[in-house]
């Protein structure tokens, strides 16, 4: 069971969290202006990197907040967690940024 650091509550066990998919995919302000292809890209296409991945988690059985995390998908260790709305922090060796 992983330990995840909620930006509000601190380090807590994975059981209290729910995964929320890739982070920083904003819903378009006016979806009606998007082509079908653009809309499908927003809905379905994700980067799925090997290595550092910015992703959403929710402390669902805690403070209830959604937040973002950078996790190494190879080692399963979290590099950093940060509040929703904050930009992805600079991390050395982060190719995806």
């Amino acid at each position, binding site marked *: *069971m992983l330990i995840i650091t909620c930006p509000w509550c601190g380090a807590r066990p994975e059981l209290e969290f729910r995964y929320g998919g890739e982070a920083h995919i904003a819903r378009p302000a006016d*979806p*009606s202006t998007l082509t079908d292809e653009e809309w499908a890209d927003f809905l379905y296409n994700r980067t799925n990197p090997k290595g550092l991945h910015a992703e959403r988690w929710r402390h669902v059985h805690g403070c209830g907040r959604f937040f973002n995390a950078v996790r190494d998908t190879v*080692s399963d*260790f979290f590099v950093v967690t940060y509040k929703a709305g904050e930009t992805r922090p600079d991390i050395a060796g982060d190719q995806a940024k």
Partner: protein
Amino acid sequence: MTNRFRTPSGGRIDRSAPVSFRFDGKTYSGYKGDTLASALIANGVHLLGRSFKYHRPRGILSAGSDEPNALVAVARDAARVAPNLRATQVELYEGLSAESQNRWPSLAFDAGAINDLAAPFLPAGFYYKTFMWPAGAWKRFYEPKIRAMAGLGKAPTLPDPDRYTQNYAFCDVLVVGAGPAGLAAALAAAESGARVILCDEQAELGGSLLAEVGATIEGKPAQAWLADTLASLSKHENVTLLPRTTAFGYFPHNMIALAERVSEHLAAPDHDLPRERLWQVRATEVVIASGAHERPLVFPDNDRPGVMLADSGRTYVSRYGAKPGDRAVIFTACDSGYRTALELKAAGVTIAAIADLRPQLHGELPSRALAAGIDVRPGTVVTGTSGRLRVSSADLAKVSGGAVGRSETIACDTVLMSGGYTPSLHLFSQSRGKLVWDAASGSYLPGTSVERERSAGACRGVYGLNAVLEDGYAAGEAAAKAARDTASPQRGATPVNGASSRSFKAEAPDLGNDGFIGATPHNRNPAFAKAFVDWQNDVTSKDIKLATREGMRSIEHMKRYTTTGMATDQGKTSNMNALGIVSEALGTPVPQIGLTTFRPPFTPTTFGIFAGEARGDLFDPVRKTPIHDWAAEHGAAFEDVGLWKRAWYFPKAGEDLHAAVARECKAVRASVGMFDASTLGKIEIVGPDAAEFMNRMYTNAWAKLEPGRLRYGVMLREDGFVMDDGVVGRMAPDRFHVTTTTGGAPRVLAHMEDYLQTEWPDLDVWLTSTTEQWAVIAVQGPNARAVLEPLVEGIDLGKEAFPHMSVREGRICGVPTRLFSVSFTGELGFEVNVPAEYGRFIWEAIHASGERFGITPYGTETMHVLRAEKGYIIVGQETDGTATPDDVNLGWAVGKAKKDFVGKRSLARASMSAPDRKQLVGLLTTNPATVLEEGAQIVADPTAPVPVPMLGHVTSAYHSAVLGRSIALAVIKGGRARIGQKLSVPMPGSVIEVEVVEPMFYDPKGERLNA
């Protein structure tokens, strides 16, 4: 024959506490402190089982958890049978009853031993080669036979009556293994104030010190030092000592699973005690002090009962006072064998000879053996053993330059072997740490760490009592310091334990670190000699060599092909020797071959410990509504809806489901019924932007909904498909009372929170779950108003004052209520929301008030029929995650003028309004008595060639008592255009003809709603 092999004194057994036990039906005696293995050895019993494949007689190989042979079943009663226990770990208690396994009809005469004679036909990979033909025979014939022949113990068939508990535990430093390294590590960590957990799989903490008779530590005899150290550790408030506790799994982020055997060792366990406890330990730092396993030597006939690991033989004598025999031959590749010889000799065992694989001897222990007059033979191998169910002699031959001379037969009843030590890397490897090959010691050692752990002592190749103690102490100090420094966890480094700040001044004989890997040379016919590498899976050196000739190169392939190391002992005694044999056969150095992956569990672990308390009634929460008990008292049958128990129907005497539902349906349509709708999800949406938020989350338009009015809302996922529905009340301009489906409640709230928090954090609106705040009682039927009127205060229930789809706040029987005028039956209806704690009180009041109208409680089945008669959908029944609102005739609920809402863009895709989408329709069977099956496929022409094109399927089907016939709802391609057509529903043995109709079977104009 009572304890003939017991030494007159010594050991840690309690000679004042004799214990009587049974093995294979025969009664023996031992002492408190014995294991089953040590007690049997003291009684001269060495034949404990038959081997897995060849059914060869097998004895006791080791004295610990690495035991591959001596597996027994221990039974307390018919339900409490634990198979496959290692006799070396089973603690003796009064009345213990154990049975050998894998033999028929008896241990001494076993019919399956024919396999041993047939061995040339059972080579490595024989499963793959032999049993693959003809197709299908594996499942029908071979597998059942092989399982019957080669199985291990048998599981009991009765439910496990014991309790198992689990708990989470936390510490700064977890120390695994309470041998000298672990004890010293725990001492160091404890003295620094750290929270420490020290666990060990054995009944007593102490590890190798428990069998240490010659050494001193800090000037005291080792066992006295052990007692003092344990006393001192147990005085620390922050230290938890866990004997009988196996660290069996190392999981990410330093979570280590420990299995504690709480009451297994007791003669009459208190049933309030768990049998076992799972500790899920989260440790800031871990010290692995798991020691090393003695390696067997791979020589012909090395599996005969009486052949044992040398240091295990010594342990039986020195710790348990049980002599493995009268006359022993020792075959060794290291100095440890000499210590065994000396201690056995001191205990009165004759040492017939020491065969030392090494050509030259040096060091303290060989000199002492020579001085003691023992026949020491350097450059000598054992080439075979004799004896039917027990060793009676061993063959010794000189070896030089790889050439083995003629054998000399030496009479003995015991052969003790030592090939050196293999560091126990299981936990380190499970933590994903990287192993490194150490040429000096000829072993793999822990290298780079992934988790916050460090190894200490023999498990990292440190030998010698003083060095081990100091390494452990240094590791404990370093771990405690690292735990305090939580801000900078060091990962990806090889921990250095550093120098110990404490000196232990331990004095013990130097055992060196010599050893041997592989198969020892012999002079026997290689076609017939069986030199075992893996005792539990019956793998010989010949099997492994054969696998290399057949092209296996990777050690992982080798393992699977020969099954070496794949038994429940995880190859503790076999992996390194297998590697050595492969290395020699391929001419490739060991480090280039690699090592197989270690996986949890370290030793077999019960299923019970994983289940813990989650069984029976406590497997999952069983959610009951405030009205549940009333329904139960009134004979309701219940159905599971998610975690909820819902009243399904209320049968009267003699009624079945069909009869009860028919009666309940008619009662609602004719007079009045009442229904517990408390499980509906409820969310209170409050804030200045509540209406705007509703607009974005639901397809409907909300801005113009007046306070005091209700609206049926439809929620989509962003992909445009129906996710949930429910009635929504506007309580105030900034407050909505939202209802969801029973199963959808948490999902809908999470969906809303997601959008609110991450897409529109600027909106001033907040969500609060009120599902359990409110009990909901639906009162439905022409007399509904008359039932409620006498109970309600402050609300005018009149048709004009309180029209259909309204909400009012007031009181009912003095209890505050939110009263909805709403119907899911097509009848005049109300839903009474009251605080849950008053749910039953109000239910009973309504029931009493309705008595004069014959008010009828009804369950979910009647609710389903009544709504289907009206064509109302149930999300998840008529929809399957691919239905648009229009597909299920809810196009009217989509606010066309709204610029955006969740799912709107997806609805604009051309395919979402294609005319051949599956659309909701009604079906009437030509034969009104036929009730279709839900899920049945619908076709146009059942005689069309296969594959017959499927048009859709039946989503709901019931007998309607009010209509006197069956009805059904279905989704059919282009369904609305097919209304009036006849279609077919093919079923096994018949084809049912149906007519497509409007999905509305009762009161199509809706006149009854406003009655």
